C-alpha cells in the first residue's frame, strides 16, 4: 500500500475515533435527563471526567508498558500492579489506623500512596526485568502469582482489621464514579495530563525502543535510564486509575490491542492517541449504554473484564506472545 493512502487511512480512523468519543461523551451527559440541569450537568460532568482520566491513564500506561517490555500480552494490571496498590492502601489503614488516615489530608495520603507504589514497583521491575528474566511465560506466571499474593495479603489484613477501619478502607477502595472526591479528581486529571505531555515529548524515543533493547542502544537512546523513567510514569498512571475506580484488569489489554489492530503503523504518535480514544469510547460509551439505555446500573468493569478476558485468552492461544 502506498504511504499516502496509509496516512490518509490512519487520519480517517483517528478522526472517526475522535468523533465516536465525542458522541459517547455527549450521550453520557445528555441522554435520559430527568430533573434539573443545574444538578445533572455538574454531577454527570464529574463522572465523565473521572471516566476520561481513568481511560487515558489505562490506555497510555498499557501501550508504554508493552513497548518497554516488548510484548503485547502483559499489561501492568496483569502483572499485579493494581493489586499492589490495594495492598498499599490496606497496609496504610492497617498500620496507621482508620482514624489517623481519615484525618490526614486526602491529597497528602494520595501522594504518599503514589510514592510507595512507585518505589515498590521499581524494586519489583528491577528484579523482574533484570538480565535473568527474558521468558515471557515465566513473567506472566510471576505476575499472576504476585497479584494473587498481594490480593491474599490484602484480604488477610482486611479480615483482621477492626470493623470501623474496614468500613473506611472499603470506602476508599471502592471509590465509585458516583462518589469521586472533586479535589482528588482535579489533582489526578492534572497529573495524568502532565504525564501524557511528557510521553508525547518522548514519542520518538518510544518508537526507537519498540525496535528492541539492542537496536535502541545502537541508535544512541539512553536505554536503561529511559526505561526506568517510563516505568515510573506507567506506575503513576496505574496508581492514579486504581485510586479513582479500583482495579480493572483487562481494559488496558483490550484497548491497546484494538489500537494495534486498527492502526497499520508502529508509530507511537498514532498508537498512543488511538488507544486513549478507544479507551474513552469503551468506558464512556459502555457506561452510557449500561446506565441510560439498559437501565442496568451495574459495574461496567464486569462487562469490560469479560470482553478483555476473552481477548487475553485469544491472544495467548494465538501465540502473539514473543
Amino acid at each position, binding site marked *: 500500500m502506498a504511504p499516502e493512502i496509509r496516512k490518509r487511512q490512519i487520519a480517517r480512523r483517528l478522526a472517526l475515533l475522535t468523533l465516536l468519543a465525542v458522541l459517547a461523551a455527549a450521550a453520557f451527559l445528555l441522554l435520559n435527563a430527568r430533573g434539573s440541569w443545574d444538578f445533572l450537568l455538574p454531577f454527570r460532568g464529574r463522572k465523565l471526567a473521572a471516566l476520561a482520566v481513568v481511560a487515558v491513564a489505562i490506555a497510555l500506561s498499557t501501550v508504554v508498558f508493552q513497548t518497554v517490555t516488548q510484548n503485547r500480552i502483559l499489561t501492568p494490571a496483569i502483572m499485579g500492579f493494581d493489586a499492589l496498590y490495594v495492598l498499599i492502601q490496606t497496609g496504610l489503614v492497617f498500620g496507621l489506623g482508620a482514624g489517623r488516615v481519615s484525618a490526614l489530608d486526602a491529597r497528602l495520603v494520595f501522594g504518599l500512596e503514589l510514592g510507595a507504589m512507585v518505589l515498590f514497583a521499581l524494586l519489583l521491575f528491577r528484579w523482574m526485568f533484570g538480565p535473568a528474566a527474558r521468558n515471557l511465560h515465566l513473567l506472566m506466571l510471576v505476575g499472576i502469582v504476585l497479584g494473587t499474593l498481594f490480593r491474599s495479603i490484602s484480604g488477610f489484613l482486611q479480615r483482621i482489621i477492626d470493623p470501623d477501619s474496614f468500613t473506611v478502607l472499603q470506602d476508599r477502595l471502592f471509590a465509585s464514579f458516583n462518589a469521586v472526591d472533586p479535589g482528588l479528581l482535579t489533582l489526578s486529571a492534572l497529573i495524568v495530563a502532565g504525564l501524557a505531555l511528557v510521553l508525547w515529548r518522548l514519542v520518538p524515543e518510544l518508537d526507537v525502543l519498540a525496535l*528492541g533493547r539492542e537496536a535502541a542502544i545502537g541508535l544512541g537512546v539512553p536505554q536503561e535510564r529511559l526505561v526506568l523513567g517510563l516505568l515510573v510514569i506507567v506506575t503513576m498512571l496505574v496508581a492514579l486509575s486504581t485510586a479513582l475506580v479500583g482495579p480493572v484488569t483487562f481494559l488496558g489489554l483490550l484497548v491497546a490491542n484494538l489500537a494495534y489492530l486498527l492502526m497499520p503503523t508502529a508509530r507511537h504518535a498514532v498508537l498512543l492517541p488511538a488507544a486513549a480514544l478507544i479507551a474513552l469510547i469503551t468506558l464512556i460509551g459502555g457506561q452510557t449504554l449500561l446506565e441510560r439505555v439498559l437501565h442496568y446500573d451495574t459495574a461496567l468493569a464486569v462487562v469490560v473484564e469479560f470482553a478483555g478476558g476473552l481477548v487475553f485468552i485469544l491472544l495467548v492461544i494465538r501465540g502473539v506472545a514473543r
Partner: protein
Amino acid sequence: MIEVEGVERRYDGLAVLSEVTLSLPRGGLTAIIGPNGAGKSTLLSVMGRLQKPDAGRVTLEGMDLAQASGRLVARKLALLRQDNHTAARLTVRDLVAFGRYPHSRGNPGPEDHAQVARALAILGLEPLADRFLDQLSGGQRQRAHIAMVLAQDTECILLDEPLNNLDISHAVRIITLVREAAQALGKTVVVVLHDINMAAAHCDRIVVMKGGRILRHGPPAELMQAEFLSAVYETPISVHELAGRLVAVY
C-alpha cells in the same frame, strides 16, 4: 580509531572473551573469523557497546564507550546485529529512517530523507520500500537492516554476519559495497564472516579468533595458510592459488 584494551567478558563465570586487545586504524575493512563459539559476536557487541566488558575498555577516537553519550557514539558508530527480529509493524522505509534518529531525533529534515533514499537505492530496496517487514523474505529483511545501518552514515560500521540469508548476487554486492565504503569513503568497517574465502578476497585485515582469544591478525595473505586454518577449525583445509586469489578448500 577503535582500541580494544584487555577486554574480558564472562557469562556465568565462563570466559567468552579473555584479554582481547585489538587496535584498528581509521579506514579499511576488517573481517573477524573463527569457529562457532569463538567470541566473534560478543567482541563485536562489546565494541558496539551493546554489552559492557567485565574488564578492560573500548575507546572510539579516544572516547571511552562506557562513558560517552549514547547519541554522540551513535553518530560515529553503527552496528548490525545477527538476529534482527522486530516485533513492531514497520515498513522498510520506516525501518531505514530509524537510522537517522541519532541525527534528527524523530524530526527528519531534507538531508535525512536524502540519506534514507540513498540507502534504499544502494541496497535495491526501492520497490519494497513501502512493504511491511513481516511481508519480506529473510534476505530482503537483512538488506533492510543493512540499509538502516548505512542511513546512520557513521564513520565506523560493525556488521555481525551481514551475508546471512543472502544469495550469491546480493552477498557479493554487499561485500563490494562495504569494501567501497571502506576504501573510497575511508570508513572503518568490521564484519564477522563465516566464509573464509569471502574474507580473504575482500578484506584488508583478518582477525582470527578461537576460544575467546585473538589467535592472530594481519593481512589475508599472511593468514591463509593451510596448517594454521586447519588447526583453527579442527578440519583439514588446504589453500590454493586460483585466479590470482588464495582460496581455502575444505
